[in-house]
């Protein structure tokens, strides 16, 4: 019943479509009616398949685009991190504190690093949001921080740098067992 009497089933991948025609069309009897129904069902099915393919194609393209965007964002962040290496490294303290373990860390808490009083007392916990705000203008967020850097004013560049730092600072490959220690 159902599709078998008034329309037709069509399958595309894991999807199955039923095209109901009986009640929407002038009543026709015999082989001519069935032939017209079949032609119409095929027409609608082909259109539907095209739509489905279009939707799935678009989704797939969007997924690829997201991956591509993430990759581009990471590469941009990695490039911008080149600005930081005058004073910072991931795995050891330099003029600035090490970056391994940065994500989720309280500001001013790396052992063995001599922080400014301002940074020690800032109460900041490093997250995407706080890091973004800090990197926009370090001395505005933490006056008298010893980080003598005006900031990354370009929004997209700063976002990329923050993403990069958040990922790499907890990366096992990059930091190994360094996250929790000095």
């Amino acid at each position: 019943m159902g599709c078998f009497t008034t329309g037709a089933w069509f399958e595309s991948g894991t999807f199955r479509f039923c095209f109901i025609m009986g009640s929407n069309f002038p009543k026709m009897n015999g082989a001519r009616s069935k032939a017209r129904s079949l032609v119409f069902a095929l027409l609608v099915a082909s259109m539907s398949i095209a739509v489905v393919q279009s939707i799935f194609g678009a989704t797939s393209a969007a997924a690829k685009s997201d991956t591509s965007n993430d990759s581009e964002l990471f590469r941009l962040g990695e490039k911008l991190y080149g600005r930081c290496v005058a004073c910072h490294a991931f795995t050891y303290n330099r003029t600035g504190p090490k970056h391994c373990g940065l994500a989720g860390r309280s500001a001013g808490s790396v052992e063995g690093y001599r922080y400014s009083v301002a940074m020690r007392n800032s109460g900041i916990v490093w997250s995407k949001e706080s890091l973004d705000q800090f990197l926009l203008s370090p001395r505005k967020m933490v006056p008298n921080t010893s980080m003598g850097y005006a900031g990354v004013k370009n929004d997209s560049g700063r976002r990329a740098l923050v993403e990069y730092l958040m990922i790499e600072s907890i990366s096992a490959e990059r930091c190994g067992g360094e996250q929790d220690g000095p």
Partner: protein
Amino acid sequence: MTALLKNWTQAKETNLKARRKFLINSGAVGLSAAAVALIGGNDALAASHKASENSDVTILNTALGAEREAIAAYQLGAESGLLSSGTLSVAVSFQGHHKEHADVLAQTIEKLGGKVNEPPETYNFPTSRLKRERDVLEFAASLEKGAVSAYLGALPLFDNRDLATAAASILGDEAMHWAVLRQALGLNPVPSAFVS
């Protein structure tokens, strides 16, 4: 690389001769007002910036920390036994520049009434990754590139414009180091029209 290093050495000698001649003839009058203020200790200039000295002193101390680290890094490279004589000569020359920067920064901090930060007892360097001359050059290039970015990022923060000018002068020197090191590594010495 050998021919290039020969050129460096010759250029360095020519540069030193020209510099000596310039200093003898001019009595250092040709130095910028900012550099005179920094090196000679222009108390009036320093005194005129009392209100902002804390901020500037903090920035200068951070720059001093980076310069001291660069001196230590070049020392590490020089003592590594990985550098050929020509490269060693250039490394020692660059280290000398960083020493000059550090001296000027320390003097300026004191002139502004600030306290010079104590250097750390030890420096951490990725020594396990330095296995050949190229590794040392790449490491030095990364530090010099970083120094350019650091000075560029610090420039807008100086309340004292003369300090900004002097910092820009140091930035130029760091950028030249970076370019020379890139050239030695077989890379485009000046990869773009702007630094960041």
